[in-house]
């Protein structure tokens, strides 16, 4: 009896302690989330809202720009994330080799891009990949191409440019996770594999990748979320062009809110599409990872 009362007092004390945090979370996180969900069912220009039911969702299905933005975003995701994960893995394995000299220098060099300012590197990429920029000049000097590539004017090459840019920036970030994880892999496993005659390639696929699976899963989900929210690079390098070929969902939300006649309800609907995509894809990745471990 006395114990139960004590327990209850402790419980109340506990709740009192976390109450301020809960109130703040409620005001600054839960309320905006529910408000934006409510907004996504509103139609109208500027501040003149009215409840539109599923009007915004119907509008989504008919909106060619939204579909273009969705396809672009998914294209970036499907092409860029696997390339980046593989590059980061290879770099991590190579830089984990104790016999390699200047390891610290290489690690820093590969990690450095992801601490640069987004705007600064976007501006730099834009000038490097201009028609008469340094990249075209170099490629022509070493006879890889005959004529300059119109990186910024051609819908295909503009996409490639965005992929190159985000890969450059984020590979080092993922590599750091792999490097940390590799420190925990026991060297004796590799030794045993070598004695059994496994090649370097076999060791990579049969030991390193399986051992790093949880970390790979984590980086894949983080990269997926990042790519679905891709905004800075496209806004600063191509502004979604040419011909909307690099328009992403986030940039479209920005345009709907700040560039066009403000349409908050509809841009909230597009935002929720990203939320749903992130949820579904993360779930799918977890599910796939779980299946394989059985």
């Amino acid at each position, binding site marked *: 009896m006395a114990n139960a009362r004590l327990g209850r007092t402790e419980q109340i004390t506990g709740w009192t302690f976390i109450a301020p945090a809960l109130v703040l979370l409620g005001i600054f996180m839960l309320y905006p989330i529910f408000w934006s969900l409510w907004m996504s069912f509103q*139609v109208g*220009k*500027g*501040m003149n809202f009215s409840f539109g039911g599923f009007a915004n969702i119907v*509008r989504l299905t*008919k*909106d*060619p*720009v939204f579909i*273009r933005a969705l396809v672009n975003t998914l294209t970036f995701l499907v092409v860029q994330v696997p390339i980046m994960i593989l590059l980061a893995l290879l770099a991590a394995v190579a830089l984990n080799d104790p016999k390699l000299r200047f390891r610290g220098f290489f690690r820093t060099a590969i990690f450095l891009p992801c601490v640069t300012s987004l705007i600064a590197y976007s501006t730099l990429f*834009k000038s490097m990949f*201009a*028609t008469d920029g340094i990249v075209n000049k170099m490629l022509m000097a070493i006879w890889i191409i005959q004529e300059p590539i*119109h990186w*910024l*004017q*051609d*819908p295909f090459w503009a996409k490639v440019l965005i992929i190159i840019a985000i890969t450059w920036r984020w590979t080092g970030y993922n590599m750091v996770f792999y490097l940390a994880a590799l420190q925990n892999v026991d060297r004796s496993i590799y030794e045993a594999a070598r004695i059994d005659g496994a090649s370097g390639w076999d060791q990579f696929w049969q030991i390193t990748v399986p051992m790093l699976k949880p970390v790979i899963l984590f980086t894949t989900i983080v990269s997926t979320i990042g790519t679905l929210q891709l905004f800075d690079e496209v806004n600063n390098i*191509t*502004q979604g*062009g*040419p*011909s*909307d070929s690099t328009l992403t969902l986030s940039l479209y939300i920005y*345009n709907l*809110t*700040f*560039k*066009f*006649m*403000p*349409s*908050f309800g*509809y841009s909230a609907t597009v935002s929720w599409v990203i939320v749903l995509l992130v949820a579904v894809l993360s779930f799918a990745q977890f599910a796939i990872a779980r299946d394989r471990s059985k």
Partner: protein
Amino acid sequence: MTTTALRWRHALAMAAAAGVSMLTMTAAMAVDVTVWAWDTNFNGAAMKEAASRYAPSHPDVNIKVDDSMQQEDIRQKLQTQLLAGDTTGLPDIVLIQDDVAQKYLQSFPGAFVPLSDSIDMSAFAPYKVAAATHDGKSYSLPFDSGVTGLFYRADYLKDAGYEADALKDLTWDKFIQIGKDVKAKTGHNLIALDLNGSGLIRIMMQSAGAWYFNPDGSLNILDNKPLKAALETYAKIWQADIVKPASGWTEFTGAFTSGETAVALNGVWMTGTIKSQPDQAGKWGVAPIPKLEGVEGATGYSNEGGSSWYVLSSGAGKDAAVDFLKSIWATDVDFYQKILIGQGAFSTWLPASAGDAYKASDDFFGGQPVWANFSEWQAKIPSIDYGIYTAEVDSAVVAQLPTITQGGSVDDALKAINDQASQQMQ
């Protein structure tokens, strides 16, 4: 401590207190008027010149010009704060480009002071006043003109066999022919174009008195003959292989300031950029733009860009702001001569063109009376209504540009523009 010393200290303290209260009193009476503009060398500099002219007779008004932001940032801040209903961070006077003005006027009723109540609007170019008129009231103090001109390198054209006379009454077909000749004889491309912008198409369309919308505001794409002709002409220019593709403003302006391309077809405000290369003095000329052939109402006169000053009704300094705009921007002829020479700011206040600077000839342009010409062309620009959805339709047009320049059907493009724009106008 002696009594004298005490008395002295007392007196000093009193004097100091009086001084402080005097200061706070003047501070309370003085009015701050903040202004947002976006180009340090152009509209920011013109506004600062206006402020310095107003200051001597109005020591109580303190005009602060902030020209550190880009136009995009100003639009974004304005839109966000007006939407949020929190105007504390907004200025008293803001510069807005004409083609987006209606969007602000119509989506934020009451946010701006109707200036036609206190300033005579008939002294300004009618098309500028029309751009800022909503429900019978005009809300802007019209600033710079976007009257267009064909800036050309007279030396390149001469090498290709064209004198200045050949550029009078140009058609776009003739323009393309000139481009081919210039490329064959001098190796220079005629013009730089950015596939991410619809500027040239809008110039062509307005030169025939058309825009994306019907008078009632509904979309006018499928049966818009000037727009169709403009798209066809735009495609022809690209296909003639006389274009240097440019991406972004720096590359775009770099193409003609570096001497790479032979012409620039833009608003009069480009004059400053062209004249930024003193070593090209005497090599340039200006002519009216080419006409769309076979289009009813086609002229050689159009508009690109141009902006105006708006007074926010939420600002504490709004009355001072209106008085300032009235007494400098709608009164002072000399002021307009100064900013024309200094910044190349071409006025839309009609009496300004009576000043000396507007009559002068310019040696940079081979001794042409450039400003007098622009004044004459400005009076002939067809007035149009920019509506509230220009940004939406623009992005639909830009989405079709790569396809039509590669030979795609213009009719299909018009249909796609119509579909996309009608989706966006909800």
